[in-house]
């Protein structure tokens, strides 16, 4: 149990996918202008990563390994993620307009989010069992959502801050992101 907790804590704070591995920077910068958008994007990422990771885990162990075609895992995972997002978008469009209104616009962004592929690959390369895969598939996007939300709150405050003209927009946002990465590196010793 403690190992699972350590795995989750490590994925959220220590090996944070954005601040430590520099993945998912496109939505991190693109959808962090308001905290409302950040929460919507974060929830959509958690949902897609969890579902895609379970499917890729099952496909790897039930199809690729028995057929001895493990070398196809990268292209398989890419296709599975893209297909999963298409079906999820279609399902939400048809059966849950309210959910589509809040999450729908972020789904196309998630297809190009490399964090999804990273988690699917990480579950296989680290030889995680099913429980560890589930924990990792929730903790990594939770860390992404946490950082995205914190960053969006900082950016909202930056909009009203008196920054020099040359630093407005992305330059000051990138400096803030670097400072956040420094701050998160202080968590390194807790596990």
């Amino acid at each position, binding site marked *: 149990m403690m190992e699972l907790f350590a795995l989750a804590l490590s994925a959220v704070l220590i090996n944070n996918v954005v601040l430590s591995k520099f993945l998912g920077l496109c939505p991190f910068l693109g959808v962090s202008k308001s905290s409302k958008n950040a929460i919507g994007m974060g929830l959509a990422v958690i949902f897609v990563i969890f579902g895609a990771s379970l499917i890729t885990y099952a496909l790897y162990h039930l199809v690729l390994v028995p057929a001895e075609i493990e070398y196809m895992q990268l292209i398989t995972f890419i296709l599975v993620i893209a297909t999963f997002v298409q079906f999820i978008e*279609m399902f939400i469009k048809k059966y849950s*307009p309210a959910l589509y209104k809040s999450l729908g616009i972020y789904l196309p962004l998630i297809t190009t989010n490399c964090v999804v592929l990273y988690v699917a690959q990480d579950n296989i390369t680290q030889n995680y069992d099913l429980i560890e895969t589930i924990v990792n598939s929730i903790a990594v996007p939770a860390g992404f959502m946490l950082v995205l939300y914190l960053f969006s709150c900082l950016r909202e405050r930056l909009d009203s801050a008196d920054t020099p003209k040359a630093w407005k927009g992305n330059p000051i946002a990138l400096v803030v992101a670097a400072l956040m990465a420094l701050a998160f590196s202080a968590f390194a010793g807790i596990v």
Partner: protein
Amino acid sequence: MNILYGMLFIIALGSVYVLGYYFNHKTPKPKGCENMTAACEGCHVTSCDNNPQNEYKEKENV
């Protein structure tokens, strides 16, 4: 034989993706969601539907 299995598997997955893409684009958006756009100013990923460059392309095609 492994290569054949691999090719068949990828073709099957690709077909599922094409079907998903087709049905997704055929499914109408719910009322009130027709003109929704994310608060994104665009990055270098031009394949993303939310990239403002795609809006210009759609307008040009119309």
